[in-house]
């Protein structure tokens, strides 16, 4: 049994990201003026500095840009090995998410694999994890 995941402290900037999974939405901040995405989420667009930004539900799919098979238990009782990946999101140019690839053996993960989001809920936080699309 894994320990509880470290819990992000919710605030005005990050709540839509960490709770969007309740409605099955992967929310990334999008600018209403220039159309670019800002991640990590901020209160203004990092491309044009507009404050006309809002969470936008992206498709929830992407490709594995890179990954590592982690063998070191960084917390007590943490089960290893597990995959940490950098997923390049579809439909949100320039946005990468650090995440875990789940529901497959660690040996099965490779570069460029297509993946989709699955949410893991823990006390009201919906962690966006990804699984390979067969």
């Amino acid at each position, binding site marked *: 049994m894994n320990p509880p*995941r*470290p*819990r*992000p*402290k919710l*605030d005005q900037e*990050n709540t839509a990201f960490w709770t969007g999974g309740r409605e099955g939405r992967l929310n990334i901040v999008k600018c209403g003026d220039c159309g670019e995405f800002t*991640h*990590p989420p901020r209160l203004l667009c990092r491309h044009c500095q507009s404050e006309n930004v809002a969470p936008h539900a992206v498709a929830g799919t992407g490709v594995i*840009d*890179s*990954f*590592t*098979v*982690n*063998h*070191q238990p*960084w*917390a007590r009782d*943490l089960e290893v090995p*597990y995959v*940490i*990946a*950098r997923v390049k999101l579809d439909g949100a140019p*320039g*946005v*990468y*998410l*650090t*995440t*875990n690839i789940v529901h497959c053996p660690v040996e099965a993960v490779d*570069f460029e694999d297509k993946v989709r989001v699955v949410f893991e809920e823990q006390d009201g*936080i919906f*962690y966006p*994890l990804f699984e390979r699309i067969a």
Partner: protein
Amino acid sequence: MASTEAYITGLGQSEVGVRLPRHPLLLTVDAVREALDDAGLTLGQIDGVFTYPGKMNGYTAFSPVSSDDLIEVLGIKSKWHLGAMEQPAQLSAIAAAAMAVKQGLVRHAICFRTVYEAGGMADPGTYMSGMKQDTVTGPSQWTSPFWATSAACWTAQYAARHMHRYGMTREQLGQIAINASKNAMRNPRARAITREALTLDKYMSARMISSPLCLYDCDRFTDASTVVIVSAGDALDEVTTTPVRIAAMAGSVDRYSWDQVEWFAAYETGADLWKRTDYTAEDVDTVQFYDGFAFLPITWLEGLGFCEKGEGGRFIEGGSRIALDGELPMNTFGGQLGAGRLHGFGFAHEAVNQLRGTATGRQVAGDPKLAVATSGGGPMAAALLLARD
């Protein structure tokens, strides 16, 4: 009056060890005294103190001593002092001191980095109290929830991608750690960290931490203080050592978020360094590259133009090119992999020793005159070009 040049004139280092009983403030004072003796200066001549990152409450082991502490206990009459995390990596403290002396604010500045991470692990209540967070904020909220809690997990993904795109092998990467261990054995201050040279067999069979980074690709928590004195060019008649000129400085950050950058800041920093000098990479006699993880020197080799991007693995193939007697001796004191996690300052310390010809037992042959020292490499980086005129 402003001075046109900044020089490194003094070097000091405490004992380097793992779980040293000596208080980190006293380790720092040991290093300061050695640096003053080395430079032929007295405390009364010091008028600036610079450190990275300054005292960190809650994670004291990472940085247990503030510039204020030294000013207070040593009675320094400081004209400018600075300690801050929000700078481009560890050597930015030396760069800031150089800027201060160039502006005439300061004549002789103590720059220091004290780490007590091994001792802190033994006494977490005193030194690691801030690590027991049940909620995460700031940049770590985007990585820690996925158990990517260590920089090893972040760096590993860039190393893995380098292998995927350019064909770097673990056998090639291993030369960084093997070279570090060989050099560490020639460095008396590294004896508490490395006792025997690493072999390729031992490296290849080592426990994996976060693929492709194994145990020997990660530096080791250490207790130590390293001091560098930076002096103004018009104050050199007060020092007794051979001064080493800071010929160029560079630092950069693109995105602070580790996982949003295309490549590490070593590339931008390396390119900028050469824009600020007439020297080129071909003029460099030795390099001291930040190696908190073995992959980082690969990015520095490529970023500074010692080889093309993607060629770093092939450049170090077999290890002879970066060996002490090779064409580009690297991390001649052992780096952090071999000499302990001095956290950035060990590289400048060694570069100066090599340029002065005082790296006893590990001196680069051929009277080296130009060296590069770097720190960081992940989202932020800093580099110094050091010259003996």
